[in-house]
């Protein structure tokens, strides 16, 4: 007989973690429907919708035309009328076309109607640079964080992709669920037991005493690479994976920086009015003396040229450079 303890998790591709969450929630709740481009027989651009149309049929898995404003609009209306739709906008760049129904209707409905109408809508979209140029690479999460009533989540692991999708599909909404092109090639352990990751809770991925790195989505992996390399020169890093951008888990960040005294934010989007800017200011309201630096994309569109793409977005070298500068210039 084997003496190994029973397994409590199973390794899945990132896309399979999303598929599992969708499958469970659709089986649990007949109000959950999916709308998107090529999510039916084709199974989605990243194969995260594979098999769902066969199991749940074409009345709950709907292929749409390339018409993002109409797709989000349809989702908002269906949600206000009582369904729990997920609208898949393959590239986050094209969510711009759906911002009017998302911002002006979905996010405001609960306020406008005194809570009589809620919009339990999930918009799933894929951000990030991976060789696809100026209009298929952007990270505009920070724009969405500024909209009252909108929740924004961005997993970096397969387990969180699963648990946050389940949370989003049970939330009164609206929720924007942001994944990243580079995450789809990753794998990770996902609990066998049904697990929900509450929206608004960050995760500490690594602990160290000298500096706190705050990141989300793919940049968590860049932050961990930087932390690993800095460890060899005696610099210990707390790495916080935000998981939720709206609401922000400032308690976890503040607690960490109160101990380390320094914070570097890392994001793939723009620094101006970015995720890091917001976190830095909110942190300063609690910790006046914290040393802070931000790392983000250069102020230029992401090029189709792979060398220019790599030059534009943060890598571990840039994160390490920012941390050395921050610690060096201020340490007595």
């Amino acid at each position, binding site marked *: 007989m084997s003496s190994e303890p029973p397994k409590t998790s199973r*390794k899945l*591709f*990132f*896309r399979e973690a999303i598929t599992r969450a969708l499958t469970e929630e659709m089986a649990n709740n007949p109000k959950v429907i999916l709308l998107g481009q090529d999510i039916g027989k084709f199974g989605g651009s*990243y*194969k995260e919708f594979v098999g769902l149309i066969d199991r749940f049929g074409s009345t709950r898995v709907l292929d749409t035309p390339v018409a993002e404003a109409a797709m989000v609009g349809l989702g908002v209306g269906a949600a206000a009328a009582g369904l729990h739709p997920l609208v898949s906008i393959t590239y986050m760049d094209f969510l711009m076309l759906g911002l009017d129904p998302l911002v002006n209707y979905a996010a405001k409905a609960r306020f406008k109607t005194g809570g009589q109408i809620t919009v339990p809508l999930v918009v799933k979209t894929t951000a990030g640079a991976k060789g696809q140029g100026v209009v298929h690479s952007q990270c505009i999460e920070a724009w969405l964080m500024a909209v009252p009533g909108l929740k924004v989540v961005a997993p970096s692991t397969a387990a969180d992709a699963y648990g946050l999708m389940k949370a989003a599909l049970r939330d009164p909404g609206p929720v924007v669920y942001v994944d990243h092109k*580079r995450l*789809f*090639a*990753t*794998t990770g352990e996902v609990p066998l037991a049904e697990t929900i990751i509450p929206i608004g809770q960050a995760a500490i991925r690594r602990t160290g005493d000298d500096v706190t790195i705050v990141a989300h989505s793919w940049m968590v992996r860049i932050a961990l690479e930087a932390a690993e390399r800095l460890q060899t020169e005696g610099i210990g890093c707390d790495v916080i994976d935000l998981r939720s951008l709206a609401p922000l888990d400032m308690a976890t960040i503040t607690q960490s920086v109160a101990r380390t005294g320094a914070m570097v934010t890392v994001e793939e989007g723009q620094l101006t009015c970015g995720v890091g800017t917001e976190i830095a200011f909110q942190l300063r309201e609690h910790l006046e003396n914290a040393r802070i630096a931000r790392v983000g994309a250069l102020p230029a569109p992401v090029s189709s040229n792979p060398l220019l793409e790599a030059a534009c977005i943060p890598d571990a070298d840039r994160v390490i450079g920012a941390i050395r500068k921050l610690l060096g210039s201020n340490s007595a």
Partner: protein
Amino acid sequence: MIYALTVPGAIEDVNEVRVLEWHGQPGHLFAAGELVVELETHKALVEVRAGHAGVLRQILTPEGDWQAVGSALAILSDEPSEPLPESAGDLAAMAVEFEIN
């Protein structure tokens, strides 16, 4: 001669694969060009075919298990009774190219 069948690479973005299906059990004689095993990556199925005739001797990565690019999936040999290597280190030296598509 003994051959180690390893996870073929490099495939863009792929560090590890999952074994979907073995198309024969130990003892099976594969003809040249015959499908040996199907592997799953994050977005595609990879078919591994025999470059020449050989006998599947031992499956090292069963269906549903994961393996890293370059690591061994199975041992094959020209003759059904050739003695198998005893250590994993010996296997690495026996890795040969298989045809993939």
